[in-house]
């Protein structure tokens, strides 16, 4: 059903579909802008500047990186449930290696993530196992590996260079936030302008068609999992450097919040359609809800239990999903030949 719409023509049908997609994307963006403006008006200076801005973006950066990788995976019609465990592994490896220098730690964390991604990709493309269950198995196994490497305790970084990575900031924003922003911009450009990006969408849109066109389907799918693993590993490095440690529960549930962010951003789980930057919007939106609750409690007028956070996130996801269903249905009825 889903086609690589963005690539298609300028017929009236294509344009209407594109308009629908645009609405889908901008819905999340509009909600984000409204919430930011609302927050800025209501909570003033403290909300939009200084400490809150840097801690919010630094925090969100990790989820952003994971969601970026997930976006590519989902675009091919796959899924990567292992990202949370991979982030934990990346953090632990980075902390272990960071004794040899900051850069070595960073690279080792990313490499560890990419290696797990390569194993996932191999199992999915060569052995043709289902992505859901393969990455579920690696969710279990990699968490075990990370815990084993850390000696079932929190891995603690030596004070010094590695921890500085988490505290450095540039123009008021932490390094992690800049790195994530850069990653998203590069990701968006790659998706739009490189053959690889077009292949990712083509594979997700229709595997058989992509194969018949002579596209290297297996290689493309494989590479998407490597990218997702590497980005998750990088997220783990930032986690470790910001906290100075990676505890045993690090990264738990990240896979599902990443999927939620991607969906909120408007990427369809069936693959073939999606936008990289809208996933960033999705991540920001879901994190902002939590941030606003903290501020609302800080005002003291009402007190919202932090348990509401997950309920509100769930409700939000529900609204987005229902809106999407309407859009997809409209698209389908439009897409049907008269």
């Amino acid at each position: 059903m889903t086609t690589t719409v963005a690539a298609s023509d300028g017929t009236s049908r294509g344009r209407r579909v594109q308009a629908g997609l645009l609405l889908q994307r901008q819905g999340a963006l509009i909600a984000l802008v409204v919430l930011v403006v609302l927050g800025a008006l209501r909570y003033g200076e403290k909300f939009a500047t200084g400490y809150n801005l840097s801690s919010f973006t630094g925090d969100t950066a990790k989820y952003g990186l994971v969601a970026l990788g997930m976006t590519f995976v989902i675009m091919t019609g796959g899924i990567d449930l292992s990202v949370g465990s991979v982030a934990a592994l990346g953090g632990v490896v980075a902390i272990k290696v960071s004794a040899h220098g900051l850069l070595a730690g960073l690279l080792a964390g990313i490499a560890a993530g990419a290696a797990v991604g390569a194993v996932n990709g191999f199992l999915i493309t060569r052995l043709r196992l289902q992505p859901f269950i393969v990455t579920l198995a690696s969710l279990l196994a990699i968490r075990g590996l990370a815990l084993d490497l850390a000696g079932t305790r929190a891995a603690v970084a030596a004070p010094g260079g590695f921890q500085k990575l988490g505290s450095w900031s540039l123009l008021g924003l932490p390094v992690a936030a800049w790195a994530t922003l850069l990653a998203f911009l590069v990701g968006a450009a790659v998706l739009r302008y490189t053959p690889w990006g077009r292949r990712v969408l083509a594979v997700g849109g229709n595997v058989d068609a992509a194969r018949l066109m002579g596209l290297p389907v297996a290689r493309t799918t494989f590479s998407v999992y490597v990218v997702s693993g590497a980005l998750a590993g990088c997220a783990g490095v930032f986690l470790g450097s910001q906290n100075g440690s990676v505890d045993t529960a690090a990264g738990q549930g990240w896979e599902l919040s990443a999927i939620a962010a991607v969906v909120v951003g408007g990427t369809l789980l069936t693959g073939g359609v999606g936008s990289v930057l809208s996933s960033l919007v999705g991540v920001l939106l879901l994190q902002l809800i939590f941030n606003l609750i903290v501020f609302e409690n800080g005002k003291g007028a009402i007190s919202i239990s932090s348990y509401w956070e997950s309920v509100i996130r769930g409700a939000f996801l529900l609204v987005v999903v229902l809106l999407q269903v309407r859009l997809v249905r409209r698209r389908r009825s439009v897409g049907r030949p008269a």
Partner: protein
Amino acid sequence: MNTRRATESRPGDGGATTTSDPVGSPVAGPPTGSAATIESQGAVWRRTSWQVWAQRYGALVALVALFIYNAIDTPFFLTPQSLLFVLLRQAAPIAIVAVGMAIVIGTAGIDLSVGSVMAIAGQVGATLVLHDQPFLLAIVAALLVSALCGVFNGTLVARFGVQPIIATLILFIAGRGIAQLITGGELQALSDPDFQWIGLARPFGLPAQVLLAFVVAVVAWLVIRLTVYGRHVVTVGGNETAARLAGVPVARVKLLAYVTSAVLAGLVGLITVSANFASDANNTGVGMELDAIAAVAVAGTPLTGGKVSVWGAVVGAVLLKLLQNTLISHGITKEVAQIIEGAVIVAALWLQRHEG
């Protein structure tokens, strides 16, 4: 009745999907309606016999092998204490949830919300009991709330056409928050022997939860094998379009599958709360969805739907638990055991892969 309609509809759908999709063949299968056709249809015949064999009995063989190994190697393994009260008692909750999961997976769905539903049911039951309500009311109310969760999931999937993984993700996220809100995240200590019967009692010298798991499995097995609903589940999962054309009430079949899964999860939530003497919304059922899906998958049931193996799910749950216990009892740390478990799941999938 159903089969007649199915046969009639075959020429009507242009032969596009029904006949070419081997998994969807309950519709196109022999019109005898006998239960045996449910599991032995389609592509299975085209494969070499050992593959069929590995797919159907692989998990069971692994379980038996592991069992024999333990019987020889592990002291006190063959005692009722160890078998009933350690292995089966630990495996029972996973098995019950896995049976519900198997039905949902049979419709080509998935239910990520089972852990959260467990937490909600446990909280509802415990809270009512602690407020001096009769224990039966507490149990019924908890199961009703679980059913409501299932209706929520099922409505999203069946009526709105939301992808199952996303639809149940909503309750996965929100459900735990709801459970925590019931008591503000506080742990509730319990001591009500009547209410805790399902987690603690030993009728006929057997742990109640093991008995419950057995009853649930038998009932589910009979329903899947012998009833029209059972055939509908397989048909819907195998080929939804064909099922719809054949007059199967697809939406209702799916809805009922999610309700079943949620009620079974709620039951396990009550068992967990009872066995722990406390209801803890923060930890009840965390990771249960993964355990249950792994149990279903390790027994060779494809996640793409069209096949329900109730005993497979039970065998898978016991197998994974026994594997875990075996590794840990041999001095392998829980973490390394987890790595091996992941590898075993992948290996099982590879051995039982479903390719034409």
